[in-house]
C-alpha cells in the first residue's frame, strides 16, 4: 500500500504490478503480474460502492482474486450497488476480461489484430492450437493452459505479440512458444 500526503492513497490505481520474475541467472527483474495492493482485507464487493464506476473496480478485483466472476456473487453485487441482477449480469457479459468460469493455470493470449496478422499471427495461433489440440478461447482438458484472442497489446512494431500470464512477449515465433507450452503442460 502506497502512502500519499493528505490521505489520498485511495486515488491510486486499485492494483499495482509487483516485480516478480527470475531471469536465467536467478536475479529478480521487473515483471508484470497483477497484485492487489490496496483493500486486500476488504471485500471487493463492498469496497468500491461509493466510487464512480465502482462496479467495474469490484468486477476487476473479483476477476483478479478468483480468476472468474462466480455467479453466486451476482445477487450480492446487485444488492451492494443497488441495481438489478440483470444489470450486473449485463455488465459482466459485456466485457471480454470478465469470465464466468475459471481459466487454465496458464493463460496465453495471442494478438489477432492487423499489425500482428501482417507478421504471421495467424500461423502462430494455428500452430499453438494444433499443438495443444484445442480451439481459440478453450482450455486444455487437464486445465493447464487456456489460449485466448487479444486485440492489440500495443506491440505492433514487434509482433507477433503474446501475453503469457500477464507478461508481454514480442517477435514470437512458434518455436519460442513451444518450450513454454511444453513446460506448462508438464507441470504437476
Amino acid at each position, binding site marked *: 500500500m*502506497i502512502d*500519499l*500526503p*493528505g490521505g*489520498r492513497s485511495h*486515488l*491510486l*490505481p*486499485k*492494483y*499495482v*504490478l509487483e516485480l516478480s*520474475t527470475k*531471469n*536465467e*541467472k536467478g*536475479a529478480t*527483474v*521487473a*515483471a*508484470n503480474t497483477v497484485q492487489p495492493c490496496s483493500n486486500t482485507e476488504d471485500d471487493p464487493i463492498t469496497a468500491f460502492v461509493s466510487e*464512480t*464506476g*465502482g*462496479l*467495474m*473496480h469490484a468486477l*476487476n478485483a473479483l476477476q483478479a482474486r478468483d480468476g472468474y466472476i462466480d455467479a453466486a456473487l451476482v445477487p450480492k453485487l446487485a444488492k451492494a*450497488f443497488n441495481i438489478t441482477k440483470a*444489470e450486473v449480469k*449485463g*455488465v459482466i457479459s*459485456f*466485457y*471480454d*476480461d*470478465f469470465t464466468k468460469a475459471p481459466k487454465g493455470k496458464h493463460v496465453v493470449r495471442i494478438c489477432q*489484430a*492487423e*499489425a*500482428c*496478422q*501482417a*507478421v504471421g499471427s495467424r500461423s502462430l495461433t494455428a500452430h499453438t492450437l494444433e499443438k495443444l489440440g484445442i480451439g481459440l478461447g478453450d482450455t486444455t482438458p487437464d486445465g493447464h493452459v487456456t489460449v485466448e484472442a*487479444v*486485440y*492489440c*497489446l*500495443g*506491440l*505492433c*512494431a*514487434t*509482433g507477433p505479440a503474446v*501475453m503469457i500470464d*500477464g507478461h*508481454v*512477449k*514480442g*517477435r514470437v515465433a512458434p518455436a519460442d512458444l513451444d518450450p513454454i507450452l511444453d513446460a506448462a503442460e508438464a507441470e504437476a
Partner: protein
Amino acid sequence: MSRIFIPLDSAAVAVGADEVAAAIAEAHPEAEIVRTGSRGMHWLEPMVEVETAEGRVAYGPVSLADVDSLLEADLMAAGAHDLRLGRPEDLPFLQDQERLTFARCGITDPLSVTDYETHGGLEGVKKATGMSAEAICQEVMTSGLRGRGGAAFPAGIKWNTVSGANADQKYIVCNADEGDSGTFADRMIMEGDPLLLVEGMVIAGLGCGATKGYIYLRSEYPIAKRVLGQAIEQAYKHGLLGDDVMGSGKAFHLEVFMGAGAYICGEETSLLESLEGKRGQVRAKPPLPALEGLNGKPTLVHNVISLCAVPTILAKGGAFYRDLGMGRSTGTMPFQLAGNIKQGGLVEKAFGVTLKALVEDFGGGTRSGRPVKAVQVGGPLGAYIPPSRFDMPMDYETFAKIGAGVGHGGIVVFDDTADMAAQAKYAFDFCAHESCGKCTPCRIGAVRGSEVMAKVIAGENRETNLTLIEDLLEVMEDGSLCAMGGMTPVPVKSILDYFPEAVGRGTAKGGE
C-alpha cells in the same frame, strides 16, 4: 559511477529488456541503471545506452546472449562492439523527426519530477497558473490542435464549451483505451513520460474549471498502469496534483480507471458509460459530453496525445504550434510504423509528411524484405492504401478526400503475401466482435458481411455476393450510430477499390 539506460517500455520488455537489465545489474552492482521510456526505434529494442563524456552511446538490439560479449567489450566505457550504434540522436531515424510531445521519451526517468523539470517539463502548467481560464482556452484555440483520438475535432471549441458550462462539478477524462491495431503512441508516452499527461490534464482542469480527472486505461497495458500509478504518486508529492496545484489555490485530483477489454469503450460516450460502471453502450449525441458527460456533468474527453500536446502549447504559445503542419492540420503527429516493417516504431513529424517517406525512408520497407502490398492507415476502421498512392501527404484533409482517415496515426504495413480478401472479412469479424449491439446495421450487418465475404472467398456467386456486400456497406454507413458500424465499410471499400483482383474482380481504381 556509470549510468546505464534501459527502457521499461512494453515493446522493449516484450523482447527481453528486463532480463538484459538484470544481467547487467548483476555484473555491475555499482552501476546506476535508469529504466527509461523507449526512443521509439522498436527494431533496435532492447536498446541499452551508456553515459559518456560525449553524451549517451547506444547499443541494440541487445539480447541476453549478447550481454557477456558487451561487458567484455567494456560496455561501461562505451567500447567497440558489433551492436554499438553511436549517439542515438545522430541516427537518421531520430534526426529527421520533429519531436515535441516525445522530446523527453527515452531520455528521462519517467518517474522523476526533477528530471522532468530539468528537461523543460512544468513550464506549461506554471504559465497556466498565472492565466485566466479564458486565456488558457484561447491558447488551445489558437494552436489549432485537433483531437488525436481519431475524430480530429478542434480541441479549442470543446475546451470553450466545457469552460463556459455552469456546474458544481466538471471532469477531465483522458481516453487511454488505444484499441487501434498499429498504434502505441499513447502507451509509449504513458510509460515513458507520464508526467506530461498529468501536466496536460492539470492544465485542462485549470482551463475548464474541472477539479477531477480520470485516465481510462485499457487492461492490455499492465506496464502503463504501473508507471502511471507511480507517476501520479510523484505528482501528488510534488504538488502538481492535490488541493493546491502548483500553489495556484486550485485543486485537481487524478485517478487511473481500468477498462476490461472492450474496443468500443474507446468511443467517448461508451467510455463514459463504462466509467460509470455500466455496459459500454454508445450514447446518442446530443447531449454532448462537453455539457452532459460523466455523471451528467460537463466533461472534457480527450485522447492521451491531445492532452500531451497541451503543455507544449502553453509553454511555447499556441501560435508556435499552429505554425507547424499544413493547412488545417496543425502541429505534429506521432505516426506509428507497425506490422511488416523493417524499422518499426514512432515517428513524430509535422503533418504533411508523405506515406512514402514514412514507410520507405523511416521504415526501410518490409521486415520480410518482400515488396509492400498495402498499408492500413488509422486502425481497424482505416483504409488499405496501395503503394501507388504513397505520395499522399499525411494530413486530415487529404485523407478525407479519399474517404479515409489519419485516425490515431497508426500505419500497418503488409507485404505481397497478404490476402486482402481475408483482411476484408476480418474487418467485418472485428466489427461483429466489438459492436456494442445498440444498432441493427452494425450488430447484424457485420455478421452478415462476414458470412457473405466468406462466400466470395470460396468463389460462390461472386458478383451477386459482392453487390450484396456493397448494399450492406451502404446500410452500415448510413444507419449506424457511431463510427464502429459507420466506418467498418472504410477498410472493406478500400479493398474493393484498390485490390479488386483479391475478390476476383477486374482492375483497381486509378489503374493500379
